[in-house]
């Protein structure tokens, strides 16, 4: 999705994308892609639909996204001052941070002692879910459409009816000695 496809403020979308790309990074989608840093081959959380999932009201984060983005940019400004970085004024502050600095800031915000940890962990959780479970899409359809996250993790294709069944599932032989105290019902003694 191009940033300006969103019905929301394009700058807000850029910031959410930059956060999601910090959680599961991907390759740039087009020349001049500012939110996706391009540090990893293949699609990441952004290409997987993280912004779409975050904006889904069912998730619970959608209503708070404006304030999350505002706050994230604030943290990015403070971070830049503390680390003596000059930020490109043409993009939002978090987007202007280089990838390693985005990473360091997100690690700090999600750290065990950070007072806002819960909301940043929530944002990270949904970014991750967009990538490896495509929670905004029907799973079988996401696989058919080549969802980058499900394909990256190697999630198996369902059968023709959209249901998963594995006919071959077992090595089919005993591979360890049983515990000597196993009872007749198969439980520990």
């Amino acid at each position, binding site marked *: 999705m191009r940033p300006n496809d969103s019905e929301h403020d394009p700058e807000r979308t850029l910031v959410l994308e930059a956060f999601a790309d910090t959680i599961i990074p991907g390759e740039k989608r087009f020349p001049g892609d500012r939110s996706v840093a391009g540090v990893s081959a293949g699609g990441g959380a952004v290409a997987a639909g993280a912004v779409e999932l975050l904006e889904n009201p069912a998730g*619970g984060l959608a209503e708070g996204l404006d304030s999350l983005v505002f706050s994230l940019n604030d943290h990015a400004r403070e971070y830049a001052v503390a680390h003596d970085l000059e930020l490109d004024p043409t993009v939002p502050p978090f987007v202007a941070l280089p990838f390693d600095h985005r990473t360091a800031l997100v690690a700090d915000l999600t750290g065990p002692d950070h007072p806002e940890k819960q909301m940043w962990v929530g944002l990270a959780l949904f970014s991750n879910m967009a990538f490896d479970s495509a929670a905004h899409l029907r799973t079988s359809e996401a696989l058919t459409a080549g969802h980058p996250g499900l394909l990256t993790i190697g999630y198996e294709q369902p059968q023709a009816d959209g249901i998963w069944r594995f006919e071959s599932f077992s090595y089919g032989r005993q591979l360890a000695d049983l515990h000597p105290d196993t009872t007749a019902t198969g439980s520990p003694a």
Partner: protein
Amino acid sequence: MTSIESTDVLIIGSGFGGAIPAYHLAAGGARVTVLERGPWLRGEEFDHDFLLGSSYTRIFDFVVGDGMSVLGGNCVGGGSVVYFATMPRAPRFVFERRGSIGRRMWPTSISRDALEPWYDRVAEALPITRQTWDKIPYAGGLFAAACQHAGRTANPAPSAVDVEMCTNCNWMMAGCRFDAKRSLLLNYLPAALAHGAEIRPLHEVQRISHNADGGYRVHYRIVDGEDYRILHDEGAIDAKLVIVAAGAGATPVILQRSEPELGTMPHAVGRYFSGNGERLNTAVFDEDRVRDVLGLSRPDGRAYEAYQIGRGPTVASWDRLDGSLPEFERYSLEQLYFPPGLGTILAQAPDASGPTWFGVDKKEMLRRWQSWLTIFIMSEDDNEGVFGAPPETGNAHRFSQQMLGHGPLSYRPTENTRRGWALADADIKDILERDGLSRVEPWTNDLVGAYTVHPLASCRIGDDPATSALDDRHELRGHPGIFVTDGSAVPGALTVNPAFTIAALAERAVPAIVRAAQERGVSVSYGAPSPDGSTSGRRAVLAR
């Protein structure tokens, strides 16, 4: 004005703790009403889908607390619908545990021997069977082979899955659409319905109050069927006897919220919560080493790459379930599958140069997801969990439309708990990293604290009124006619999957509940056969 209905026995929750007494009481002639906060899904309504709003998010609850997050069922059938159906009996030493209270945690009347006939009743009812190696999925086989290579033992764990019907799809956390998993939807609950019990889904009990006749009034709200953040009408039902079985994450909250009207609760209501000592490690296997060191290969030539295939945990290593070891140093290790989404975010990338749970290294780890093996530690924690003030409604402030909420539980693992986890982590490393088989890291506790899929002990049985909320008949101290029969009644961590023990305790509690109902004028008797009509379990317990 809201009309007040009445029944003989009102049961809060339809998991093991609710379904088992519901069946016996209804079969014995009592009028039984079961209130369940979650929806009622069956068969093909259980989706193979991660989409928000599919069965995966409708029937399953994830409550984030302060230092402990709890996963549980949220549907008719409760935990039995979302669980992995791994059903070992708790080892003998568990019943002798003292924890940190300086005395035996379990009531004197309960030991492994005393519980065996009740385990047998549940085994007959579900049923639960021993598993054979020829049907163990690849992931279980891999763990077994690694244990053997390290000089350890490993067992196929007893299970309530009918393996002949199972497709090894590993969607069982979203409910089993093939009815291969023997949930309560297939035995106790239909049998209870056949005897006239009524089950009302999407009825969330908020509190209990007194009636002048010595009975109780149970107050509920209707939960919206799609957006659980929305509550609709309220209502109340009068009952002569109440059974609270809302799960260890909700039972104490309902009782706490009822305290202003019911009177002081026992000290142990909402204290001594145990996460069953649970913790996870994820290994990423080197496929070549799996082939070369362990000699494993699949028919298509791959060595493993089968994390997705199977039916949850199927193989466990019980070498450290040794009663001669010190308390807090005993645990089982069980191979486990956890689906993507919740099952990946906390896994840490081995050998990461930067952050371990997100970023570049984590994505590289995810590329090898099919070579993952997750190992489940169930150890002896220290009953550290304490529930704070109840939220306005339910047991959590619901954040997402379904599944995700924030609850009042806090948990600070003691040195005892951490020692068990450290020993188990080191053990897993020793087994799985041997000869370059894999690289393994524990899941991080930094994001949502510790986590459990087996919440226990938040309203527990015991002999000591200071440290137990229930007597050994599961009656709430100081509140005659209120019984608690779910996982919250279990005194502490069990070192194995607890569903079978929860169910056996619920079976054991029924005769005393029947007597209490009789004393309150309910026409009811005890002695129903197994839900399918089998009678050997009944004969065994009636002979005692």
